């Protein structure tokens, strides 16, 4: 049976993980490779690396990190953040990334999705969508939720999939950071709108939230950062808990 996936997300700046990470046993908590290997070993099903650096050296540093991660871990991983061209993606995939995620650049120029899907195949193109509710409508936002666009979540999701997105990563800006659970109603509607896998993101606070998003939000995967990084939820414990609640996991 196909299982539901648990995906820790690592924010990367200049080749290092940012935000405090509460892994006392790590030699270097800022080393993405060591952290990635730890998560893989603990039973994470995939990893997402989100690059937030803006330096000139960005591409080179990121490519090296991707290569080091690919060398070290034996589970799939996605790399996103600031990808705006076919060449950016080629470098990341050549260095061993399994998938890439695009966000703002795809909203600004949707043809990018088609170009990437055609060149690399839909299976490695994740379209990340940040949205929040404005007057009862889910509105797509850019720059981490700061900039509203004229696009609506469900229409944009459908267009992204029609253009070749193989997977969607939906972050509810209303839920992100609240630790009150995922945006399950919107996720469920999203799963009824498109036929590709959907990763739920934003709102994870405790283990019941993961059960809810799989059982009621129809999510195929759930992504979280701080609850894993700060060891509030251990991945082996989460897997056991999900199993007890009849959610198929690896």
């Amino acid at each position, binding site marked *: *049976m*196909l*299982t*539901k*996936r648990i995906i820790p997300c690592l924010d990367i700046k200049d080749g290092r993980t940012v935000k405090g990470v509460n892994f006392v046993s790590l030699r270097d908590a800022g080393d993405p490779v060591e952290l990635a290997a730890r998560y*893989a070993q603990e039973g994470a*099903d995939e990893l997402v690396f989100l690059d937030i650096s803006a330096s000139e050296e960005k591409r080179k540093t990121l490519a090296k990190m991707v*290569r080091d991660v*690919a*060398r070290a871990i*034996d*589970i*799939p991983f996605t790399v996103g953040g600031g990808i705006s061209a076919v060449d950016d993606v080629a470098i990341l*995939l*050549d*260095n*061993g990334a*399994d998938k890439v995620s695009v966000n703002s650049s795809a909203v600004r120029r949707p043809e990018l999705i088609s170009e990437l899907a055609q060149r*690399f*195949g*839909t*299976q*490695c193109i994740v379209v990340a969508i940040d949205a929040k509710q404005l007057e009862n409508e889910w509105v797509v936002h850019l720059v981490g939720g700061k900039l509203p666009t004229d696009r609506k979540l469900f229409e944009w999701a459908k267009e992204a999939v029609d253009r070749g997105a*193989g*997977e969607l990563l939906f972050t509810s800006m209303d839920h992100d950071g609240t630790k009150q659970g995922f945006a399950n109603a919107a996720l469920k509607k999203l799963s009824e709108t498109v*036929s*590709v*896998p959907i990763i739920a993101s934003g709102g994870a606070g405790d283990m019941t939230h993961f059960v809810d998003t799989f059982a009621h939000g129809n999510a*195929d*995967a759930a992504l979280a950062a701080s609850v894993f990084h700060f060891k509030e939820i251990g991945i082996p414990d989460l897997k056991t808990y999900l199993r007890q609640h009849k959610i198929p996991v*690896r």
Partner: protein
Amino acid sequence: MNVVIIDYGAGNIQSIRFALERLGATATLSHDAVEIKKATHVIFPGVGEASSAMEKLQATGLDTLIPTLTQPVLGICLGMQLMCNHSEEGNTKGLGVFNTDVVRFKTNLNVPHMGWNTVDGKEALFQGIPSNSHFYMVHSYYAKPNADVVGACTYAVPFAAALSKNNFYGTQFHPEKSGVVGATLLQNFLAL
């Protein structure tokens, strides 16, 4: 041991190479017939679209070389699919190693089939791997089960997750991305 990964411009070959490195094996990337024939083990990777991958094989003559190889050959993902008779993707003739056809999932479930699914495996490739272990897959087309199936999986319909015939092997899943059980499978292949 001399492992060659066939490099024909259609695949995530670094990941396979790194997975072999973790097992202490070094692999050469090559599309050269002489190099490939000399290998003790050949890995035939592939991601992307079937008909364009097949065109790349034809352009280099690899389409006629691969079925004549006599050492252990492992096709991974699209590589395995191209070793079948025919693929519905781009209506492409395959290499004809495995006597079955590749068709698209027709289901209400999500396509691509993406994530970790259980495989009921047998014979040499799956030695030491518990039955119904999880392997990572991502694909929209599948090989119909036939007599060569050594790994069975179901997603809407039963499909071939692993095939074996004489010296030829194939996995729909990515052993290089399937954690400990994937590493064991690759180790089993290298031991052939």
